[in-house]
């Protein structure tokens, strides 16, 4: 579905393609409908707004999730070896794909349990890396962190009560009149979130620019060849590799708890109603991304 729509756009926008060909080698964060696509981004990373892709590429290729290893978090895979057969019991939309997960793990597993036994752990069915499961869930759930069923072990009543408290507090902060509107920003596949003050920007363009700087580290890590993150010397190559990367769409949650595409409403209205931001993988934004493409079309 995504392929057909994107390829049709390619054919009708060949002109636009050629104009922006140079842009394609740059990695930028672009909002649909903004003139951002024209902007020279330097070392930024283009995460979305790329309705145009290279020939022969799927518009929304998958992030190789297994290669996303968080810098901040400990690599759980260190503690496991072998092929993961069992995993966390999950529900709520994301199926546990035990078999596939197991084979993916082979790349990243080493047995290194610190302990007296230097031998291989003989257990045939060890744990799946937590990060992998987290990332898989990230792509399906609007929540930014994957949630294992029943973990942490907190009763539903308490969880629900605290969730209401927090959202109330956030809204209160936003209206505090102190002139700052802090909202969380999550990016699918990233191991942690960021918080930004919407009031420090006065346009969508500024917001995009800031976000691309903030989240560039994740995409570099993702698209490093051979899945090795954080290797500086690969930086140049990575930027080019993002050509083949998947598109991202910037979305936000408004006061009615609906997920909206960023860029539709005037900036002030947006800052008033935005509760949190999510940089969504293009493949998840099938409802949203085509509109993004249309907007670009109309603006060119």
């Amino acid at each position: 579905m995504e392929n057909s729509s994107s390829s049709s756009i390619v054919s009708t926008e060949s002109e636009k393609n050629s104009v922006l060909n140079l842009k394609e080698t740059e990695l930028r964060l672009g909002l649909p409908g903004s003139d951002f696509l024209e902007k020279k981004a330097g070392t930024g990373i283009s995460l979305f707004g790329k309705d145009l892709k290279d020939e022969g590429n799927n518009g929304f290729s998958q992030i190789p999730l297994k290669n996303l290893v968080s810098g901040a978090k400990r690599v759980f895979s260190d503690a496991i070896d072998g092929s993961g057969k069992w995993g966390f019991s999950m529900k709520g939309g994301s199926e546990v794909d035990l078999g596939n997960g197991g084979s993916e793990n082979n790349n990243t597993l080493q047995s290194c349990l610190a302990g007296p036994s230097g031998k291989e752990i003989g257990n045939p069915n060890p744990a799946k890396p937590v990060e992998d499961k987290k990332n898989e869930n990230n792509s399906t759930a609007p929540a930014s962190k994957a949630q294992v069923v029943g973990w942490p072990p907190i009763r539903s009543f308490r969880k629900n009560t605290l969730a209401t408290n927090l959202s109330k507090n956030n809204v209160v902060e936003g209206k505090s009149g102190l002139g700052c509107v802090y909202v969380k920003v999550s990016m699918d596949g990233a191991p942690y979130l960021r918080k930004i003050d919407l009031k420090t920007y006065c346009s969508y363009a500024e917001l995009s620019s800031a976000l691309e700087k903030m989240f560039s580290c994740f995409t570099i890590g993702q698209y490093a060849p051979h899945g090795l993150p954080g290797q500086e010397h690969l930086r140049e190559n990575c930027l080019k590799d993002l050509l083949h990367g998947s598109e991202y769409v910037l979305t936000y949650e408004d006061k009615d708890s609906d997920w909206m595409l960023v860029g539709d409403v005037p900036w002030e209205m947006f800052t008033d109603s935005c509760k949190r931001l999510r940089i969504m993988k293009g493949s998840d934004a099938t409802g949203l991304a085509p509109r993004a493409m249309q907007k670009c079309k109309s603006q060119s």
Partner: protein
Amino acid sequence: MDPKLKKTKDSSSNSANSPDSTHSSFLFPDEVLERVLSLLHSHKDRSSVSLVCKDWYNAERWTRTKLFIGNCYSVSPEIVARRFPRIKSVTLKGKPRFSDFNLVPQYWGADVHSWLVMFAKVYPFLEELRLKRMTLSDESLKFLATSFPGFKALSLLSCDGFSTDGLKAIATHCKNLTELDIQENGIDDFGGGWLSCFSENCSSLEVLNFASLSSDVSFDALEKLVRRCKSLRILKVNKSISLDQLQQLLVQAPQLIELGTGSFQQELTPRQYEDLETAFSNCKNLQTLSGLWEATSLHLPVLYAACASLTFLNLSYATLRSDELAKLVAHSPNLRRLWVLDTVEDKGLETVGSSCPLLEELRVYPADPFELDLHHGVTEAGFLAVSHGCRKLHYVLYFCRQMTNAAVATIVQNCPDFTHFRLCIMNPGEPDYLTNEPMDEAFGAVVKTCTNLQRLAVSGLLTDLTFEYIGRYAKNLETLSVAFAGSSDRGMQCVLQGCPKLRKLEIRDSPFGNAALLSGVEKYETMRSLWMSACNVTMSACRLLAKDMPRLNVEVMRDEGSDDRQADKVYVYRSVAGPRRDAPPFVLTL
């Protein structure tokens, strides 16, 4: 031990050996024995007493008035009815504890209705019913309300299946109600009208807790109720009650021993603020304070006057900062139990350590459990600080994102009397963040140092070594919770072989397989239950267990789409009632 009891025991056992063991003139008359035994209240003591001999078994069963059933499926209503003729109070627990965390599907069972039907027949004078993790419908509640004329106390914790309509029935029909305690249930809230169903003659309430219900109740009805019930000692209202309404309630009930406030945020005039302060200072008997939703530094000071007598402060729904907590605990030197959210951070816990030397129990809950930001919440530093200042600490539940082996070792050195140690490092499999090593030594230190340890919950990156330690040292351990831990069958085997007092073992997402399961074959009959989910157990091992041990119920639930051979969720428990007859189709009884 009571010397009288000892004496009767000796003569009893002597006569049991003689050929005339049934000749009761040798012994105390039954009435005397029964009189003595009626003074026993602990159900564990009563269990022991009933095993002495037949006479004692009979005397005990005639004098037991309080029934405690830790697993509703371990026995049947019929068996209970046959054995105990005079029950006035029943405590029933149903689902496995992990059902609190959504690991048990709906309609699993533990329905109380068949019990109620039996109670109505055999115990028409039933006065108290306390249910935990049971399912009950509104019909059951109506049945309860109308079948027991002397019914006094209803306590529902973590139950599901009913709605506020059922509560209406209770309020309407139970004329002598002294206790209505509704806590954290999966309840359908159709409005607060149930409160208005209390008759205007009802003045017997001593305990009223509806803190976990969400809808508004009629404040007028509540106020009148509180005014009439002069013996009210526990009142926990819900969020719909505002601060000025709370003040009006407190004025009617200054005798309260336990108070749960409503919402603690409201624009108050200076006069209202003063009145509220006065109301709190007039509550001279207040020992427990909870609720405090949305409390901020603006209104917390009204509490200070009441804090001096507090022994239990439950702030687990108040997102307090460290400075706000500091001021509160500074006024509460007599605190024995404190529950907080991790918004107070390490700094807040430091003030606890310095202000509450008598503290025995600390619980720190996560305000935002799914947040990944490492800069929020508490760390090992907070726990350490509390352990330095509160040497009497024996119960802890601590949710954190980082911990070290060294910190835990120091903590248990400071507080060697832990009976309940529940540490939850929220990221599964998280190692010692300083050394990157597993957390084995932390829990090793806990079990080595805390010889009175009854309950342990482990977390973080753990190898079999943790379980070796547990098996070797935790000789008083009764309850063990394991998640995302261990390396092989050996871990679980060590625990099963090494912990003589183990009663409840619950395991999830750990690499324990068939060998581990089957190593406990003889152990499970001495335990209440075993839960294993997302482990490596297969159906064949479960079937083997079921076959070898007829007095164990082995139940398996499978996840959608999983291999036919995998036993995704296994629940094993001893039972004299045989396999249960109300199992839903997704529960396979082997």
